[in-house]
């Protein structure tokens, strides 16, 4: 609605310094420290401070080719653990004792000295182990919410699930081979032990453990080209949606709670789709429920598509767990921010459009759940000059300019090797 009057609310705050010497693929913000890990085609992982925007350490010499992706293990105290996925077919696990570095990372005043610090710090990362198993380039890596499981995916069409069984010891617990082409990305559900994977075969697959075996519990097929990135909604981020206190809205909130966090996917087909689980209780009312109760298959449906703004492949999306906003970026050099808004009158319109001969139960579901629309609330073109953007992520703001502990920044990573930090000013819209 208000699309025509979008204010440019994205402002550059800083470039992380120094940049990578070649294409940078991805930047992963640490789950609780104000640092970010950037992996690049120069085989190096650079760790930057989000307080003063300079490099605090780097990891090199481990991988023989591009480091494509990395992920911080969640739920660690006093120690950090980083998993790195490389085109050299291997996955590295790196550790560091955080206690020695806390002062540096929280102190705003120790910026700028650069080279010395870098040399000193190179020793701090301990190479813990390498996970071998994939036959070709490893493209994605993700830790489960509790940190028990690590998932990796590769051009070899497989998804591997590893369990950390002891100090520096990982066991392969599943090799999932149902995708028919490169698996581009993996992402764990924010709470459940459920994994989503996106592929060059255009499909998204959901995986869960069923009686000791990891199996595919759902295939989400709607993209018409490679699925490049997946992002889960935060556990309760939908509660941030502006609302009226109407009965419709209350019903919507209940429905939202039943279906749990949604999944967003972006693709080479220029679309970003939001997927929602059809709540299970429906099947209990079904006379066939006794038979079905054994099945862990889930039904996921498309709930929404975000406004289409990108002109070229969308490489990355990130869904803020704290604000519920989604950010996307890609080959066209644009960064777009979307927000979900409650809208009373969408209930009817949505029902009209998909008024097929579905069962009344299903129709009720879609009626109850629609009720929001997605709007572009921020956009910037040429964010990395003429270069493509490979990754975007929300992170907690940690520099001097932050206005609150909740404030978030957007971190974008580009083909130029640079990592840029953007503020998003959430000017409240006039009603």
């Amino acid at each position, binding site marked *: 609605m208000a699309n025509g009057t979008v204010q440019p609310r994205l402002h550059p705050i800083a470039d992380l310094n120094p940049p990578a*010497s070649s294409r940078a693929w991805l930047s992963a913000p640490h789950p609780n420290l104000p640092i970010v890990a950037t992996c690049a085609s120069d085989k190096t992982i650079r760790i930057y401070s989000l307080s003063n925007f300079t490099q605090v350490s780097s990891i090199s010499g481990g991988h023989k080719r591009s480091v494509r992706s990395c992920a911080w293990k969640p739920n660690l105290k006093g120690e950090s653990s980083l998993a790195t996925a490389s085109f050299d077919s291997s996955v590295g696990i790196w550790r560091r004792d955080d206690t020695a570095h806390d002062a540096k990372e929280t102190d705003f005043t120790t910026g700028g000295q650069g080279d010395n610090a870098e040399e000193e710090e190179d020793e701090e990362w301990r190479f813990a182990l390498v996970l071998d198993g994939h036959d070709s380039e490893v493209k994605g890596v993700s830790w489960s919410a509790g940190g028990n499981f690590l998932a990796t995916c590769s051009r070899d069409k497989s998804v591997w699930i590893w369990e950390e069984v002891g100090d520096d010891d990982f066991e392969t617990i599943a090799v999932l081979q149902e995708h028919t082409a490169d698996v581009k990305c993996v992402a764990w559900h924010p709470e459940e032990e459920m994994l989503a994977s996106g592929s060059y075969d255009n499909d998204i697959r959901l995986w869960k453990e069923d009686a000791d075996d990891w199996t595919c519990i759902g295939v989400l097929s709607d993209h018409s080209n490679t699925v490049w990135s997946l992002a889960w909604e935060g556990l309760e981020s939908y509660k941030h949606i502006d609302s009226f206190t109407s009965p419709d809205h209350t019903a919507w909130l209940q429905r939202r709670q039943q279906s749990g966090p949604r999944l967003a996917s972006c693709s080479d087909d220029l679309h970003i789709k939001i997927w929602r689980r059809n709540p299970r209780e429906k099947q209990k009312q079904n006379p066939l429920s006794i038979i079905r109760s054994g099945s862990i298959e889930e039904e996921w449906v498309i709930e929404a598509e975000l406004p289409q703004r990108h002109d070229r492949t969308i490489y990355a999306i990130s869904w803020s767990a704290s604000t519920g906003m989604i950010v996307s970026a890609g080959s066209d050099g644009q960064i777009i921010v979307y927000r979900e808004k409650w809208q009373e009158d969408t209930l009817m319109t949505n029902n009209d459009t998909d008024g097929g001969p579905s069962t009344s139960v299903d129709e009720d579901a879609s009626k109850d759940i629609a009720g929001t629309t997605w709007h572009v609330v921020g956009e910037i073109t040429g964010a990395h000059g003429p270069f493509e953007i490979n990754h975007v992520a929300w992170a907690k703001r940690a520099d001097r300019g932050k206005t609150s502990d909740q404030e978030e920044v957007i971190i974008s990573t580009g083909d130029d090797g640079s990592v840029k930090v953007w503020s998003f000013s959430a000017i409240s819209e006039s009603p």
Partner: protein
Amino acid sequence: MESIQNANPTIRAASDLPTRRRKASFSTAASDPLGIFTQAIPSPSYNFDPFSSSSTSPISSDSDSEEGTEPIDTQEIYDLISTISDPEHPLSLGSLAVVNLPDIYIRPLGAQDLQVVTVEITPTITHCSLATLIGLGIRVRLERCLPPRFRVDVRVKEGTHSTAEQVTKQLGDKERVAAAMENQQLMGVLKKMLETCQ
């Protein structure tokens, strides 16, 4: 390359290939297209020289403005890629009519002064397994020579290849292309194909 896939390809005479015929003012640029672009590549994307970022940044800023005044046309794109050698014949892609001037398109993208170069290739035979390699050679050549504001799409011309769609999808996949460029063996083959480009 144990067995040659197309032992008897149709070859075009050099005089039949499209050139920018006698435009004196352009001749230097056309005969040495790389010359003007090498300076205009601020892209550190594939540059592993640790000193490159410091040495190219001042150059890139003023060459950017030069680019703006001198648009690149399809003939220049053709000149950059038609001299690439076929992987199985000692002939150029231009003389084999794998690349053809009318199958090169340039269009603007978005508001940001970006441009998309689309090259449609015509493999010499419909099941040529070398189509991917040829396409990769073209993409690599253009990405190296063109300024970073260009996006390069290489596709197999519809109806000319049995697996055109698959090959096109692979050539469009940035990650696969990046991984291929880190494969020394493959880059050795590409280097040979690109040796004939001046």
